[in-house]
């Protein structure tokens, strides 16, 4: 990371040594919490809710990578989440409908709204193997394709954000319009079994929760691996100074495509597990609003950190569920206000507060431009302020490093 440039080598290795221990302890604690404490203390209903939050958190991990690290503000993660979810839902619907011989194998909603026949493009998803492969490949593949088309043309920043948002809007409209084959606004629901396991059985519900918890842990591990790797360094470099990376002989488009595809994959897996846990997927879960909604937790938690997006996403989902019960209108104000305050004044998210607090306890003076929240201590971007470009109104809204700007004018003045 860019910490490399500011920290002395010996300090660096010390940092890594301590971080290694912390990572292992962190994963162990998370595993104990998710696999032992949660199932022991929560009712089946609450456990299901937590499972849903974990699925949404998977999307957040991907966004943290693409947006926090890669600077690609994707407002269309609902598309990939939705693709994963719908692919899974199609399989579950077909599985519930039974084999073609005998009952005819037509899902109930198609009998009601459709022609009573399964369209050709549904057929492959009768096979669990095809379905799982499709969930792994289709959304990530689509993201790679789109990313390749867009990034090689150097569409970025706000353009990319708006395009991805239009994509989410188009996807939702398309889903709603094809009621006979996608269930329309109703979406797909009423699943009875998950790969042969009865979904009404509380034991199986717990199994699904474990599956989601495991998947999330794996994703966090993968994200960490990517972040500390050479690729992760390149990604941050592309975010902060795409042209310099290009001049150094790398292809920024490639780096971005990979990050975007990984984020899409994570969203798709989250969607695929969301379906059996929540029991329904509908266009209301994938359109423009939910797509931006995914970002709230990420921004509040700390976009560029490893754990910020995950914890932020879970906390926001939890608050949404529990607070909206008591104050439906007050909750919207609170959510909006928190979101505004964090993005405007604390771009590093709540993780930044935590880092500052830890630094102040250590007694070290923050150097330069408000040190970014790093995962487990590795600062991700105490960048020299001179790197800032993109005057407002230059007609080139490039991605600006979030971390170098502090709400305190004095501090940010010092960085420049």
């Amino acid at each position, binding site marked *: 990371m860019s910490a490399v440039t500011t920290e002395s080598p010996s300090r660096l290795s010390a940092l890594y040594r301590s971080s290694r221990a912390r990572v292992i302890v962190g994963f162990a604690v998370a595993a104990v919490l998710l696999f032992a404490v949660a199932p022991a203390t929560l009712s089946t209903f609450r456990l299901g809710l937590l499972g849903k939050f974990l699925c949404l958190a998977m999307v957040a991990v991907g966004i943290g990578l693409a947006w926090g690290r890669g600077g690609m503000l994707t407002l269309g993660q609902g598309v990939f989440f939705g693709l994963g979810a719908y692919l899974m839902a199609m399989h579950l619907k077909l599985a519930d409908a039974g084999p073609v011989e005998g009952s005819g194998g037509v899902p109930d909603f198609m009998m009601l709204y459709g022609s009573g026949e399964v369209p050709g493009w549904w057929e492959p998803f009768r096979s669990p193997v095809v379905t799982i492969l499709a969930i792994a490949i289709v959304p990530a593949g689509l993201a790679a394709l789109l990313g390749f088309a867009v990034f090689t043309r150097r569409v970025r920043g706000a353009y990319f954000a708006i395009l991805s948002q239009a994509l989410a809007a188009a996807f939702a409209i398309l889903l709603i319009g094809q009621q006979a084959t996608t269930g329309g606004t109703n979406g797909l629901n009423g699943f009875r079994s998950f790969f042969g396991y009865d979904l009404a059985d509380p034991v199986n519900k717990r199994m699904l929760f474990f599956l989601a918890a495991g998947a999330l842990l*794996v994703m966090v591990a993968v994200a960490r691996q990517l972040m500390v790797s050479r690729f992760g360094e390149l990604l941050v470099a592309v975010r902060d100074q795409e042209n310099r990376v290009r001049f150094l002989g790398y292809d920024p488009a490639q780096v971005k495509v990979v990050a975007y595809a990984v984020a899409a994959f994570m969203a798709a897996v989250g969607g695929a597990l969301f379906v059996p846990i929540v029991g329904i997927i509908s266009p209301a879960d994938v359109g423009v609003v939910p797509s931006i909604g995914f970002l709230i937790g990420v921004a509040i938690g700390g976009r560029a950190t490893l754990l910020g997006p995950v914890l932020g996403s879970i906390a926001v989902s939890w608050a949404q569920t529990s607070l909206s019960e008591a104050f439906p209108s007050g909750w919207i104000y609170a959510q909006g206000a928190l979101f505004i305050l964090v993005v405007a004044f604390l771009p590093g998210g709540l993780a930044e507060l935590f880092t500052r607090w830890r630094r102040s306890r250590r007694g070290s003076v923050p150097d330069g431009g408000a040190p970014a929240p790093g995962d487990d201590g590795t600062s991700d971007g105490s960048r020299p302020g001179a790197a800032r470009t993109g005057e407002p109104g230059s007609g080139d809204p490039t991605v600006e490093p979030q971390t170098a700007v502090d709400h305190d004018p004095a501090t940010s003045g010092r960085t420049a």
Partner: protein
Amino acid sequence: MTPSRATTRLAPAAALVALALTLTACGARTATGDGAGAATSAAESCVDTSGDTVKIGFLNSLSGTMAISEQTVADSLALAAEEINADGGVLGKQLEIVQEDGQSEPTVFAEKAEKLITSDCVAAVFGGWTSASRKAMLPVFEAQDSLLFYPVQYEGLESSPNIFYTGATTNQQIVPALDYLKEQGVESIFLVGSDYVFPRTANKIINAYAEANGIEVLGEEYAPLGHTDFSTIVNKVKSAGADAVFNTLNGDSNVAFFKEYKNAGLGPDTMPVVSVSIAEEEVGGVGVENVEGQFTAWNYYQTIDSPENATFVEAFQAKYGADRVTSDPMEAAYTSLYLWKGMVEKAESFDVADVQEAADGVTFDAPEGSVTVNGDNHHIAKTALIGKIGPDGLIYTEWSSGEPIEPDPYLEGYDWAEGLS
């Protein structure tokens, strides 16, 4: 750096192992639950009827796009509960209301329904509006074996033992509306609807009816939900030149549609529109001047002249303000609570199975007139009314089916509807 990379890989590996272990463990434990979808009896009901109160749940969207409509249903449910409590409660127990917000999202409806049933332990849930929300809740109520009272007219083709439908099904709203049009000598119609389940299903039924009755369907157009530009659709309607338009647009789209319709020189005299989603509550938002003289199909209007309705309207306006109007879904919600009370008192039990058993034949003198529960399909017999929108924004009955129509959600009693379900 190299050693650190090597060791961090331990973490994911450990997680994978943990995952694998868990899965195998669970897989082994659930091999028995792998029956062919046999309805494993859900968790035992936790409804507490030992005290002198009983909990019921209201589940309406208080936030989001549907809050517009569903808040009114929540209001009339609260009124009914208040009246019942003042009158001594149900089986001597006061009703304790747990109000939940569905946030206009089907997913949230499903989640909150489960919460109401399993965490709050309510005896029954009242609410839902969109078909999507009902479809989302249906599996939850079936799996948990609890009761939902759904107060809105809908597209039919459904009947669940765990849902009571107190709004109209198609043969109590759409079919009478078509009968009315046919009676008026209409020979061709144009279908305009929002792009979602109710309009599409309704139009399927209308097409079948039209074909059997010699009515020509000149066009069928769908606008995305929230669509606000209707110039093209109105162009199509105008150039098709049908005798009447059957409108299944929902919510905001009606406003844009009717303004465009009027501006294009069309009106009740040239090409009347029959709407099935515009009630008293919506007329204000659409603008009286845009819809005056147009037709609606419902089972209740605020202007119904009966002592029950006078009491209902008076009580509602006393509680919420004299400027409030009452509409069909509000009345159906109000009625649903009284019907549940009737069922419970007939069964002398709050138990779901007992209530289901007792449901058949329970009647209530509702504001719309006498309604009776059909124990087979859990819908209620209602009188169909075609109304005309007056200059004061209220709707006046133009035509009535005269007597309650037996609910027939699958349209089994109609020959032309054979191919539909």
